[in-house]
Structures are given as structure tokens and as C-alpha cells.
């Protein structure tokens, strides 16, 4: 197991480095460069030269990359002139908010999707299964921006019982103190996730219900509820664990569309703004974080297999 983890960590470092190289090169291939994007059409050539010099953009790309990488090692992700703040502090301010959004929506989705998936498997090809399947497909096929707007129209405009935007504050405490503002964005994300998770759960439970160990459990006199809860549930959670592991990067990249619809000041909104203004330091910083999170998420998913399924061992 230790050897497996060590190998995976080493692979991860290489993967993250490759990601940074590719992103760095791609960003610098964009026409116009960051100076015009950030200084605007009024900027004179002298102002652009001055900006490029101050930011180091007039140096060769490999040197820029090396400088950026050495700073990265010390935790310095650069400085965003658009936000007049260091990238680390920007991410530090916004990450907890996105974390709250993603954790709440994921937990809510799990609480709903796991029982739903099990119910569908147990009631396979019955009315309940068909009904839930239809709704799952509807939500699965609905783009988040559309779902978000529909929820806003229904709950904030027509009724109106909930705010149309998320709480606005740099303080996580203030945001949590206004739970009403979190309901719609959490619901938007959760409904999409429920649709996805419940489908996986349904398939997994159906598959497990046909396994020999289930028959054995029944033969030993276990009740159906006990079979489901104590035997099938645990084994059926493996694909969900994979999905959860792979959704870890989303915590760092944020729910870009949902955050934009609900004006939620999280990582996704930050990345969106940075992309629009070609704010290289922010885009690179978030990309690296997402790269690291992807690798770690994938690793955690592998480890979760071992925990959930004792047959799985990484020698």
C-alpha cells in the first residue's frame, strides 16, 4: 500500500508539472497578451511596455515559467492587478465559500440520491422507478444556468420566498448566517448531482442484488432490510466513492455557472472573471490547484476502494 501511494504521488507531481507547462504555454499563445486585456484600449505603447516589464511578461516564456514555478514552491501564486490582491489571498478568501456550497450540495445530493437509487433498484421496472428515472433524466439534461434561472423565477420572483442571489460577504460567518441565500444555489447543484448519483446507485444496487453473497445472506436468514443495509449498500457505494473522489476538483474550480447565476463570490466566479480579463496569475493559480485536486481526488478514490472492498489490495 505504501509503495502504491508513493508511486501515485510521484506520478502526480509529474502530471501537475505537465499541466502547468501546458497551461502556461497555452495562455501565452493567446493573441494580444495580458497587457492590452488588463490595461484596456486606451493604453499607450509606453504603458504596455511598462506593464509588461513590471509583470515580467517581456522576458522569454521559459524564464517566466521558471520564475513562476520557483515562486510557487514558496507558496507565492502571484499578484492579480485586476483584484489588486495576491492570488493566494484571493483563493484563500473564496475557497471556503465554494467549499460550503459544494459540500452542502454534495451532502444533500448523497442524502437524497442514495435512498432514491436503492428505491429504484428495489422497485425496478415499477412506477416509482420509471417516475424517478424520468426526473433524473430531466435534471441530468438540464443545463445548470437554466435550472438556476427557473428556480429563481419560481422561488424569488413569482412566489417570492427566497432571495435571488447568494449572500454577499467576505466573511464565511456572514454567509452562513444567511442560509436562505444558499438554498437555491445548493439546490441547483444538488438536483444535478442527485440525477447523476441516483443513476449510478441504481445500477450498482441492481448489480449487487444479483451477487452470490446476497443469496448467501438471504439463505442464512437475513431479512431483506438487513441485506440491503448491511450487505448491498456498502458494496454499492463503490462507484459513488469514485464519483466523489473525482468531484474533489470541482471544489477548487467552483461551480462556475451556478456561481455566476447566483452571483456567488466563490472560486468559479473568480476564474470566470480572470478568464475574461486574461488575468494570468489567477488562471494559473486555480489551474494548478485544480490539477492537484484532481490527482488527489483520484488517489483518494482508489484508496476508498480498498476501504469499501476488502478484496481490493494494492500490493
Amino acid at each position, binding site marked *: 500500500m505504501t509503495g502504491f501511494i508513493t508511486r501515485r504521488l510521484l506520478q502526480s507531481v509529474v502530471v501537475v508539472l505537465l499541466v502547468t507547462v501546458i497551461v502556461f504555454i497555452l495562455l501565452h499563445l493567446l493573441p494580444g497578451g495580458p497587457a492590452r486585456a488588463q490595461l484596456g484600449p486606451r493604453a499607450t*505603447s509606453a504603458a504596455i511596455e511598462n506593464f509588461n516589464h513590471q509583470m515580467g511578461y517581456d522576458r522569454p516564456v521559459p524564464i517566466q515559467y521558471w520564475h513562476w514555478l520557483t515562486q510557487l514552491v514558496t507558496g507565492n501564486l502571484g499578484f492579480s*492587478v485586476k483584484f*489588486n490582491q495576491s492570488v493566494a489571498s484571493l483563493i484563500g478568501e473564496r475557497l471556503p465559500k465554494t467549499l460550503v456550497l459544494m459540500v452542502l450540495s454534495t451532502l444533500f445530493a448523497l442524502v437524497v440520491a442514495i435512498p432514491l437509487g436503492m428505491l429504484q433498484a428495489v422497485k425496478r421496472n415499477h412506477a416509482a422507478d420509471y417516475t424517478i428515472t424520468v426526473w433524473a433524466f430531466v435534471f441530468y439534461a438540464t443545463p445548470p444556468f437554466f435550472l438556476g434561472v427557473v428556480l429563481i423565477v419560481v422561488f424569488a*420572483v413569482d412566489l417570492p420566498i427566497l432571495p435571488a442571489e447568494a449572500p454577499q460577504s467576505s466573511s464565511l460567518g456572514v454567509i452562513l448566517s444567511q442560509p*436562505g441565500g444558499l438554498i437555491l444555489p445548493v439546490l441547483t447543484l444538488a438536483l444535478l448531482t442527485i440525477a447523476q448519483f441516483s443513476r449510478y446507485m441504481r445500477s450498482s444496487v441492481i448489480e449487487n442484488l444479483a451477487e452470490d453473497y446476497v443469496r448467501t445472506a438471504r439463505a442464512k436468514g437475513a431479512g431483506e432490510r438487513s441485506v440491503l443495509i448491511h450487505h448491498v449498500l456498502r458494496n454499492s457505494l463503490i462507484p459513488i466513492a469514485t464519483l466523489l473522489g473525482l468531484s474533489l476538483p470541482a471544489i477548487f474550480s467552483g461551480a462556475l455557472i451556478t456561481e455566476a447565476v447566483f452571483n456567488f463570490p466563490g472560486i468559479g466566479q473568480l476564474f470566470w472573471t480572470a478568464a475574461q480579463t486574461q488575468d494570468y496569475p489567477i488562471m494559473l493559480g486555480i489551474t494548478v490547484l485544480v490539477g492537484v485536486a484532481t490527482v488527489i481526488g483520484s488517489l483518494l478514490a482508489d484508496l476508498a476502494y480498498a476501504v469499501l472492498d476488502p478484496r481490493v489490495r494494492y500490493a
Partner: protein
Amino acid sequence: MSPGVISGWGARSGFFRARRLIWAILLTIVALIGTSCAGQTTPSSGRPVEGGVATFAEPANTTPNYIFPFMSIVYFSVSTVSDLQYLMFRPLYWFGDNGQPVLNDRLSLADYPTFADDNRTVTVKLRDYAWSDNTKVTADGIVFWINMMKAEKKNWAVYVPGGIPDDIDSLTADSPNQVTFHLNKSYSAKWFVYNELAQITPLPHAWDRTASGASDCEHRVGDCTAVYDYLTDQAKSINSYATNPLWQVVDGPWRLKSFNADGNISFIPNKSYSGPNKPHLAQFNEAPFSENAAEYNVLRSGDNSIQVGHLPPEDAPVKPDDQEVGHNPLENNYTLDRWYSFAVNYFPLNNHNPRVGPIFQQQYFRQALASLVDQKSIIKAAVHGYGATTNGPIPTTPKNPYASDKTEPNPFTYDPDRAQKLLANHGWSTPRDGVGTCERPGTGPNQCGPGVNAGARLDFQMMYATGTTQVTLAMQQLQSSATKVGIKVDLRGAPFNTVIGTAIPCDAGKPDCNWEMGNWGGGWVFAPDFYPTGEQIFGTGAGSNVGSFSDPKLDQLIAVTQHSDSPEALQAYTRYGSETLPVIWGPNYDYAETEIANNLKGVTPQSPYLNITPEDWYYVK
């Protein structure tokens, strides 16, 4: 029964009980929170009351991010200057008066200057304004700013070589409230006040310091770099804006209560404000939005969290020709008001492009191209009628003393027949739906013109900024009209930043000079160059002359506007500019369609220089 299907699973199961529990929790939360969110209709008239809190929605994706008024172009933006700095640190002269693009004498810190010695000597007399630390706004504060400009030219956002402070030979503080400028030449008084003195924001004595203590930039230019570095360093600590004692020294009507980098800002009245318009509100807030649509959702929810917001262009009601605005979709809570900017809109042609530059340099060609732009139709189709035509280098809307659509009508309104004749009369074939070619090369009056070879093709690439309906529609209209007269416009959409990064002044033959036409969707807002003389955009070699246009006569006419106060100077310039077309004019869209809470007054008329004055706002009850 199929394997695995459990027959005993029914309505009384734990799953169903859990589902009921989840619904119960959800409904309880919704009910608890919902009680405070019910929409209400706001009253629109009543007696004025003091106090209250008003929140202004910042334009989408733009937030103020820099507090020190002496800033590099990196931080220079409407939101930073108008929505943050000007509320606390007043410029020497305020521009925008009752919706007109003119000097506002009432809100200026000084009397209109007196000019002597053939306009080479300018004397500015300050009025009785005070800083919140109980010191006066003095002549030293002006000298402090000018000295900073001299020491840190390259870090002043709108520095233009030859402009202020280069045009000041010397400067003396005659008394605590009077300063005299000695200029290197005679300048137009209006130009000097509107475009040069307008850049000055007097600084407080408390800011004349470094980390190690007091300094003397007010009297010694040599001290200014250290002071600049110190203040800049402080200004980069964005989360300390509301707590740093430096930034609490203000002479404007407001001071910061709270500030965060996301754009959530709260101001409270500066009790020491000595200006004429003291705040009525107890607090003024600004709120950020990442998208226009997100802001619109909040406005139409009717939760009254925003008192001054903006309608997305696509949601603006169609404007009948005989009315100022269409039927407001938010009329229960808001009043719709058009926010004009004092701006011209255009797209440049790259006169230095080796292939097509010689064609663009022909005046008849630019006139033909301008005749293919149907500005009025674009305004109707793309922005529901909320815009004005651009007729020449000086805006005609809003009404102003410099030009008007009556005195300066557009000589090249939409007329494809005129375009066809102009081209045909100068030796071009004009096949409908084809590509015209030069059939009579030469420099004669009925030939294609200097530099244009036989067989040259009217085939151009137009890079335009995608993402806004108005630019896309305008470009499609141009392309469609152009095909009628043998001009092929190859539209190439690109992100805004790519367009402004590609369409730049360039030298012929250089790799970056291959672009042909570029349209980023915006032209030029005359601020802080409030007097619309155009030297920065149309003068030969000017930094923002994107298409590298050059016309000695236009340069001369611009120079006259800078040195003469005669109204004819501006008129001659705009007439010539309208005829010669240094760029191709396009529709000037409204800056915003503002929604103002029905019970909030004093917001209109809105400044064409895009400043806001929440100190004038008040509620009625």
C-alpha cells in the same frame, strides 16, 4: 419476482419516512426564510426624509480596486475613479452638470481659473474646503499632486507626453488657497481646464509621508518617489482600505465604512464635508455582480436590496420613437432612466496594413464604407432603440455646447447607392455579391488613388468582439450591405481582449501589423479628457490612434482646438473629421439603462461623464 426485488418494500418503509422528514425540513427552512423576502411595491412620491441606506449595483464584472487617486493605468477605470475615489477625494474641478458634459462650478474645489499673459499664466483660487482631519484643502495639496506627476509620469494613468505636467514650466503656491501655473505655451483656456487641470486631485498633507515618517513631496519633487512608493504600497493592501487611517482623511462627502475586494463597499457620510451637497442618506452601499442577468434577477425579485441598478440591454423594453424609454418591466418598484455617456463609437481601419492600408488611406473609400453602416437600424435592432448615431469626432448626444446633430449632421448616413457611386467613380468595379477590383489605378481624381495597384481587391478581414449582440449585429449589417457594392467583409469573431490586443497602432511590415479592420465594440469616452479635442485618438502618432490614421490638416485643426478658445475651432475640427473619417463611426449605445427605486430621488439626471453623486440622493416617504 425477479432476483433482488424485495416485495416487502412499501410506503411505510424507512425510505419514505426519511423522504417525509427531508421535505419537512426543507419546507420549514423555506417558510422561516421566506417571511423576510416578500416583494413589495415601493411608493414613488412623498416628502423627503433624511437617512436610510441605498445600494448601487456596480456594472457587471467591474469593481473598484484602488483607493489612491494617483494611479497607473493598470487600476484606472470608471468604477475605481467614479464609484470609489471621487466619493472621498474630490478632484480640483468636477465635470458633469445637470446631465450636461460641462464643468460643474458648484461641485468644484476651486473657482474657474483666471488666465493672463496670453493664457501662459493660470491662477487657481481654492474655495474653503477641509479635510476630515481638520486641515484645509490648500495650494500645497495641488503642488503635492503636480510634484508627484513630475516624479512619476510613467505611473500616472493618463499621462501623455507633452501634456501635463510637461506643459507646466513652473508652479507656485502664492498663498494657502492660491496657486499659479506658468505654462510653456499659450493654450486654450477651456482645453487647459477641461483636459489638464481636470486631472488634478489635491492631496492631503497627511499623505506626504513614507514608512519612516513625514516627507516633503509638497515642496520637493525629489521626495515624491518615496512617497509614491509608500502610498502605492498602502493602496495594495486592499482589505485595509476601511481601517487604514491614511484613507480616512477625506475631503469628499463620504468615507469608507467597509470594503472588500469582491466589490461590496459601504460608505458613511463624512461629517466634516464642507461642500454644498451634504449627504442625505445614512449609508451608501455598492454591490458587485458577475453577470447582468444575475443583477436583473435581483431587481425583478422585488426584494429592494438594490435601489439603483441596471437593465441588461437584451431585457430593455423596446423604445417607441416618440418616447424616451419603453414600458419599464420593473415599474412597480423602479423608474427607468437612460444613462448617456459623452462618447463616440467607431471602428478603426489599419492604415499601415501592407495589403489594404493604401485602400484605407483613400478618403472616398472610407466615405463609401461609412455609407454602408446603417446606424439607426442597428440601434433599433440591437439595443431596442437605446443609442444615438455618431456623426463625427464630437458626440452629439447628450446635448452639449460643442456639437449637435442639428449643426453637425452625419454627412454619410446609410446610403449604399452613394457607396457604389463613390467606388465606381474612382475606378473600382462594384459587382453585387462579388469582390470589386481596381480597374483604373493611378492618382487622378477618377482613379483608385496612390498606392492602390491594378487588380487590388475590396476584400477585407474584420475582427470583431463577440459576446455582445450589438457588435455582432452591427458587423452582420455591414457585411450584408457591403456585398451590394462589391465589398467583401470577412467577419472573424474573437474575444474582446483578443481584438483590443490585435487592433493596435503598428508599423507597416511588422508582424503585428497584419490586422485589417477591428471592432471591439467601444470607441472613446471623453473622460478625463473632458474637452473633446481628439488629439489622443486621431492625432498622427497618438497613443490611442489605433488605425495609425494621419492627416496633416486634421492634426492642424486639432492643434487649433488646443490653443484657441474660439467655438469655431471645435466646429471646424468636427466638420472636417466628419468628412474625412479617420475611423468609421458606429452607433453610440447608452452606457446603461438605469433602474432607480421609485422612492429614491436625486439620482437623475445622470452624469454623462459616468460619475455618481449619492450625496444628492434621498428617500421620499
